[in-house]
């Protein structure tokens, strides 16, 4: 391609359009048509020589002629790709040589939509990005907006966020256990995972009114207080799930077929993970004890005891073990949240941010005006920009908001952990078998909703 000098798209310069959109196909191309940099990326060569861009010849056998390999397509309708992930794989027999993931099939322009919604409405948008851990999206969004507003949610709201976030981590990891079991042929695990997750979702329905996409955690606090008797519900969930994790141990951890499928498969090193920006259980599986809840505490995570689970080899088994043990650690945190839950307001008493209680609307004209203003034009946020990260079940979930001083964000960008983590796939799959690709995709745990946004 000629040198890239794209210019702004205007009516009088519509001729640039054909150039702008002729940047090439996203699909994988045969080797002789592929640039060296792209080739090394698809072959999973992450760590470069200091000169940069130089492919280590020992890392990929470039001598193999093109007619002995074939490029096949996997997805986006493949059942093991967790939604609409599409992979193109170059295979030699059954061995994977190159991988390219092609995404965007679930792109709905949520960041663009977010610019048209007020900060009050924004929660309904971000909660749909990572639909398996919607509450973490809401926590990141709310913390970012609060940081721009310069307010802090009351203590009870903070602890409600923690307990709901950890329950969401439990439900997300349970779903991962279920789908991972399904991908590896253990349908019993699938049913068990769904069964336990159902308990958590039922509790969410009781608290927030919906099973997913809650819009429960909002700037300034939460939408409602926890319902009466929530301690009993949560205790039952904790007791049941904790006991069941030991059943999973019996079912899977020691089972030779399961271990043979995942032990030593899809391994990568800590240096490669850090270079690729990989976070969450994938980074911890390589032995890096990086968990934002511990390393850079937000909410009140510095007031609870829990262990950061790390692996050793960075293979799929380590990631399985980490998620299984994180279930137990999350339950530990939830139990402490029940004990330490402070009383008080569940949302900030700031009439500019928090809508007035329903009862006041009938009595006070001012309350009615506030209510009307907040739900029509929303509240204004001072000019500024902020990046707030939280630890979602999949890694660092960051929310970058730019405010121009109005009631809608100028730009809302979500740093989705799955989007970045997917880049490790060429590295994991290289040299492995095609059937291991399924295990590796499952181990990355991508949620296409947040990959494509």
């Amino acid at each position, binding site marked *: 391609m000629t040198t890239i000098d794209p210019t702004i798209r205007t009516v009088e310069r519509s001729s640039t359009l054909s150039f702008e959109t002729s940047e090439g196909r996203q699909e994988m191309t045969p080797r002789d048509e592929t640039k060296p940099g792209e080739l090394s990326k698809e072959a999973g060569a992450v760590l470069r020589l200091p000169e940069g861009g130089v492919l280590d010849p020992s890392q990929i056998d470039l001598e193999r002629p093109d007619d002995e390999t074939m490029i096949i397509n996997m997805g986006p309708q493949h059942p093991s790709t967790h939604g609409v992930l599409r992979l193109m794989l170059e295979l030699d027999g059954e061995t994977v040589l190159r991988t390219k993931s092609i995404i965007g099939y679930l792109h709905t322009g949520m960041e663009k939509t977010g610019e048209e919604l007020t900060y009050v409405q924004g929660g309904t948008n971000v909660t749909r990005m990572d639909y398996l851990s919607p509450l973490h999206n809401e926590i990141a969004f709310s913390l970012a907006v609060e940081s721009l507003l310069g307010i802090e949610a009351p203590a009870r709201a903070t602890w409600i966020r923690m307990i709901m976030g950890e329950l969401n981590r439990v439900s997300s990891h349970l779903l991962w256990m279920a789908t991972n079991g399904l991908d590896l042929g253990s349908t019993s695990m699938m049913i068990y995972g769904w069964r336990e997750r159902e308990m958590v979702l039922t509790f969410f329905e009781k608290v927030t009114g919906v099973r997913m996409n809650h819009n429960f955690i909002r700037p300034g606090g939460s939408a409602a207080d926890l319902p009466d008797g929530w301690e009993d519900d949560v205790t039952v969930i904790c007791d049941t799930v904790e006991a069941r994790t030991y059943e999973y141990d019996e079912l899977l951890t020691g089972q030779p077929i399961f271990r043979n499928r995942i032990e030593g498969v899809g391994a990568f090193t800590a240096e490669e993970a850090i270079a690729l920006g990989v976070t969450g259980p994938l980074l911890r599986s390589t032995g890096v004890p990086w968990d934002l809840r511990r390393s*850079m505490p937000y909410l009140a995570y510095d007031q609870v005891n829990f262990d950061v689970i790390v692996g050793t080899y960075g293979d799929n088994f380590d990631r399985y073990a980490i998620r299984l043990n994180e279930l137990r650690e999350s339950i530990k945190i939830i139990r402490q949240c029940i004990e330490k839950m402070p009383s008080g307001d569940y949302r900030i008493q700031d009439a500019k941010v928090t809508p007035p209680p329903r009862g006041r609307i009938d009595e006070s004209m001012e309350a009615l005006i506030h209510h009307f203003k907040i739900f029509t034009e929303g509240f204004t946020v001072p000019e500024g*920009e902020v990046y707030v990260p939280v630890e979602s079940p999949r890694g660092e979930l960051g929310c970058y908001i*730019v405010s121009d001083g109005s009631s809608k964000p100028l730009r809302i960008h979500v*740093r989705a952990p799955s989007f970045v983590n997917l880049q490790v796939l060429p590295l994991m799959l290289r040299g492995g078998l095609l059937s291991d690709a399924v295990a590796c995709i499952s181990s990355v745990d991508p949620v296409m909703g947040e990959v494509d946004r």
Partner: protein
Amino acid sequence: MTLSLPSDVVSSTTSSGQVVLFSSMDRYHALVAELKATGFEMAIDLCAVDYLTQPGRNLPENIAPERFEIVVNLLSLSARQRVRIRLQVPAGKPLVPSIFDLYPGVEAMEREAYDLMGIAFSDHPDLTRILMPDDWEGHPLRKDYGLGRVPVQFKEAPGPR
């Protein structure tokens, strides 16, 4: 332990307690390389912002506002520290040096910035669209890109007008 930041940046401020460095276009790659050598091991995020509707925003005095900005968030695992770099990108020539050679993890993020905001990265190994279809016209996250003008577009249908 706190990492010391390069002293010769064009300007630096804090936003909500977070350290923000401003870079000039020709210093950008060198600055990121310097920060990486200082101990910022991970490029956690890269995104583009279109300030078309807010040209007179709050910037340090020696920074001339441009239409686009590239925002890079770096993270140091060892020092538990973050830093953000904001780079002004002119609308007439939205071309930025890629930092792919320093942080391979920005590959997808730079492609996303290119796809949705139309900012090109020189020396990027595979600068193609990532979220939108190959034959899409325009860059949807730009402020002058109409929202909802074409409800459904098929490959055979004419592009957005």
